[in-house]
């Protein structure tokens, strides 16, 4: 039995991938717009189609703490959250990475309060940018499915042993129905065998996890964590190659379109890349040399891909769905700027902040931002950032 095409809400797609991963422990707390994932997983456990312990924790902090305990004991562990939930568990995200536990999390991206808003943007994920997790941005339901299964395989690889999160846009992606190719249980088992941890909390071989480090060890431990997270990059590419061979779908850290002769490359992460692609396609038809990058791998930061692909054009427009309040530009834009600072040839980088709290960014908006970016570059007046479409 091979893959089959099904029509599912993307939250269900995520849950289905988790079921196929045969997770042992799920610990989750409800928060909009993540709730459907938690609900579907608890139904699966209640119906016996997923043999896992489902822990109805009393907070996201405990959700991640339970995942840490479970993963340390050798269980394949999963949780899902959004915005405030991510902020509440952020302390534990750093610890999960520091303890090198291959937990997988779905982050259904949503804006951080205040004002309270349940709608989507990337302020939550950007707030934990440095937590040491492998981080993937999904653009559509298929990527949510593929990345979720891949995340377990990458995270549990002995050369990696880091937690991994798959980000999907709240509502705009999590709550839409999409046709998705779902692999069979046999295929899933073959791709993702049972997790056999190298070290686990068990009386048969006692270990201490989470010892404190004094300054004489701390920097060495951190340096190693940084190098080894970066070292997961070739493993991620290896898993993506294998996935392509098995299932025919190709992935890259930056998925690029029409970039080779582009005079400007538009960069965006997540579900809004779909609309951006239509806009870029339209502009191409009208003879404008515009390219597109849909960002997939956020951490480890794909420095070489950024330099190689975005270096092809003299101008880069980055549309960030997060604002660094009081800062000097959109978070993705600023990392791109930093990546090019020491390069002899570097593109001009225009940072636009748009689509905050789920505000729609339509094809015409991408076209307007493109026009604006070109004007700013032409005039040589590129500001730190501009917020697009905001009423003054």
């Amino acid at each position, binding site marked *: 039995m091979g893959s089959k095409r099904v029509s599912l809400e993307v939250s269900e797609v995520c849950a289905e991938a988790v079921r196929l991963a045969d997770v*042992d*422990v799920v*610990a989750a707390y409800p928060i909009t717009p993540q709730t459907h994932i938690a609900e579907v997983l608890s139904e699966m456990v209640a119906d016996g189609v997923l*043999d*896992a*312990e489902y*822990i*109805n*924790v*009393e*907070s996201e*902090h*405990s959700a991640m*703490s*339970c*995942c*840490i*305990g*479970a*993963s*340390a*004991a*050798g*269980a394949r*562990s999963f949780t899902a959250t959004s915005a405030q939930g991510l902020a509440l568990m952020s*302390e*534990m995200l750093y*610890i999960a990475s520091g*303890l090198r536990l291959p937990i997988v999390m779905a982050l259904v991206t949503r804006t951080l309060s205040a004002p309270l808003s349940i709608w989507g943007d990337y302020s939550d994920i950007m707030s934990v940018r440095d937590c040491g997790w492998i981080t993937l941005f999904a653009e559509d339901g298929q990527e949510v499915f593929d990345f979720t299964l891949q995340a377990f395989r990458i995270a549990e690889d002995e050369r990696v042993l880091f937690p991994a999160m798959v980000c999907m846009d709240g509502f705009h992606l999590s709550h839409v129905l999409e046709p998705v190719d779902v692999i069979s249980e046999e295929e899933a088992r073959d791709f993702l065998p*049972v997790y056999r941890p190298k070290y686990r*909390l*068990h*009386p048969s071989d*006692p*270990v*201490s*996890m*989470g*010892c*404190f*480090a*004094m300054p004489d*060890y701390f920097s060495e*431990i951190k340096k190693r964590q940084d190098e080894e997270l970066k070292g997961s990059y070739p493993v991620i590419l290896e898993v993506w190659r294998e996935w392509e061979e098995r299932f025919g779908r190709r992935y890259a850290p930056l998925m690029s379109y029409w970039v080779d002769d582009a005079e400007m490359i538009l960069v965006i992460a997540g579900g809004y890349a779909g609309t951006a692609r239509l806009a870029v396609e339209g502009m191409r038809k009208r003879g404008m040399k515009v390219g597109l990058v849909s960002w997939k791998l956020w951490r480890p930061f794909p420095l070489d891909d950024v330099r190689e692909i975005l270096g092809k054009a003299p101008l880069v427009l980055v549309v960030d769905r997060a604002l660094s309040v009081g800062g000097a530009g959109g978070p993705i834009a600023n990392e791109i700027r930093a990546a090019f600072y020491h390069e002899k040839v570097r593109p001009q980088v225009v940072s636009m902040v748009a689509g905050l709290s789920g505000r729609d960014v339509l094809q015409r908006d991408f076209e307007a931002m493109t026009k604006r970016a070109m004007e700013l570059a032409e005039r040589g007046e590129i500001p730190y950032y501009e917020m697009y479409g905001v009423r003054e």
Partner: protein
Amino acid sequence: MSEERAQLLKGFTPKKLPREEYFGPGHRACQGCAPAVMLRHLLKVLGPNTVVATATGCAEIISSPYPQTAWKIPWIHSAFENAAATAAGIEAAYKALMRKKRIPKERIYVVSLAGDGGTADIGLQALSGALERGHDCIFICYDNEAYMNTGIQRSGLTPFGASTTTSPAGRIFKGQRTWKKDIAAIAAAHHIPYVATACVSYMKDMYAKMIKAADTRGPSFLHILAPCPTGWRCPPDMAIEIGRMAVQSGMFHLYEVENGVKRLTVKVKERIPVKEYIRAQGRFRHLTDEDIEEIQRRVDEEYERLLREAGEMA
């Protein structure tokens, strides 16, 4: 109760205690640290098939300076407020992995270990969640009545009147201005199978309760008073004696709540005045006789209530 453990409690003497040490010597506790004594004996009771999740705090900081460890059993520390949630995750993992035949089916004791702050203040939410969900874990609060490892700051379990670095005895306020939070009653309100208070100074009583907690299926909660000479301002060789005085004076009570039934396990025939207990410690040295009388009145009231609840008084 296993035969071996039952034998241990018959004619309880130090020489009958298990010789195996699972909390290794050479850890960095202060002299006279009663929590360290408690830990050593806890692991003697539970043995090698035990895994401990420890909150940030004294027990963690004295035992695990990388690259050393005092723990000869599997041990994890992740954060301050989440020992109960971490233990819950471990318990759930063992349940799933044993059911799915990934690890051998056997009894492994899962312990959540936190101090008074890690249990009753910052850790209360995670503890309540874990108790309510019914995880098969032993939840232990070792109570040294303040945040000792960070420099003796007050917690919700610091007794009234005690001077700490954040409830100092000043010109206007005389130390801690709140009464000790009844954490055992809070745990018992979750209607879990077993709740008990204990004190390192009453070794046999503590052993009996640790054994009962081990034999409980489902959550058990032990609130263990463990004097801290450093923070209580008394000589290190007084730790056990001070603990005994806490019980003898009625400042701390030894009881258990088994399936909802409360029972005094150590009955104090003739209580000593709280003044004797208080005057033995530097943390109370600013209190006047009138202040101590107020504490005595409160202790008398609480003691009467306890006797009523435990069916010792009509």
